[in-house]
């Protein structure tokens, strides 16, 4: 079972914590909003992904089964 990261765009405020905790999948655009790679979370990075989801100040991230 593999998951990917998904963004609730109405909740995201571009704080960028996610890109620090899961750089393998998340970088930031010129306005500070996450550019999320739709590939599944890499093996071994599942805890990082969970931490990124939990650390988002606006609860804008979730893990969702890949493919959708």
């Amino acid at each position, binding site marked *: 079972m593999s998951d990917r990261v998904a*963004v*609730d*765009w*109405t*909740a*995201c*405020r*571009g704080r960028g914590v996610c890109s620090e905790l899961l750089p393998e999948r998340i970088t930031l*655009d*010129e*306005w*500070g*909003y996450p550019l999320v790679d739709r590939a599944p979370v890499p093996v071994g990075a599942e805890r990082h992904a969970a931490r990124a989801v939990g650390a988002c100040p606006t609860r804008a991230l979730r893990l969702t089964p890949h493919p959708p």
Partner: protein
Amino acid sequence: MTAPTAVLPAPRLLTDQPYGPLPDVRDLVEQVEAAGLTGRGGAGFPVARKLRAVRDGGRGVVVGNGAEGEPASGKDRALLAHAPHLVLDGLRLAAAAVGARRSVLYVSAATPALRTAAAERGVEVAIAPAAFLSGEESAVVSRLNGGRALPRSRPPAVYVKGVDGRPTLVQNVETLAHLALIARYGAGWFRERGTAAEPGTMLCTVSGAVRVPGVLEAPLGTPLRDVLEAAGGPAGPLRAVLVGGYHGVWVTAREAEQLTLSAADLGRVGGSPGAGVVIALGAEACPLEVSAGIVAHLARQSARQCGPCLSGLPALAEVLAVAAGRRWDPSVPARIEQLAALVAGRGACHHPDGTARLVRSVLATFPDELEAHAAGRCLAAS
């Protein structure tokens, strides 16, 4: 706009003939599936699938969506003025098919006649705010739940949890009208017009450089040149045609000669029939100026809920204005593409996606105009 006309000798939605009594329909979902009816609100989703999803959820709500926030579209208004009972029939049939206990007609304006007809049928009337996104499916649900008419993030989908937290069917009013005719005349009848892959007819709103702008009805697969002819023909030499409205694609006048009103043809140029909005651009108009105006409107109409849209659409409007105003910067085409890629798919609704589609079609269809503007000229005949 003038009264609706038709490309067909025997129009369906726009006929003056009475429709006949509404039969008692037991297998509406199966009939709609056999007819191949798809939504006429722009997204073209198979109607039978939506009906099944809401029916499976149980005790749902059905909404007839006539908000029509697209500025260049008048077909829903025309249909509600011409055949409101057909729309209300469709709403009643859909409600029965999915087991809904509540029916709402969501419209931009309601005449006393419409309110009376709705009340007689136990249908509530709700007024949609005059904004581009007011008719977006989740925005409709949000409004009917007492909030603002702005899109909501999914999941959950509205057919799972929508109005009053119930499974909700949102169908464009034209879709409901077709559904009401399928119930009367059957799937085979519906398929007598259109193509095998894209059956039936659709309403179109034709405007811009045509002699008789207005709403007309055409079978899917009708050549675009016939659609323009039904609107009185071009008012002069044409430069291009915008197909699909503000979230649609530009095609050159020459391309329009070869294309039909179909997902098959328009998909090949990155577009779709959408909600049937066709805007003809005369040779005297600058497509970059017109596009800059459209993108400025789309930027103003952002719900401002999602960062990439809130930031990216005004940035696109600005760069289009630079291109149109001939304050040239060599980075303009690349910047348009960069911004389109940054906004597409990164929002709660498809507003940024549609805007990206439009600006990408500007790049694809008007490289000559961009080149002229780079040299301080404009190809539009004066």
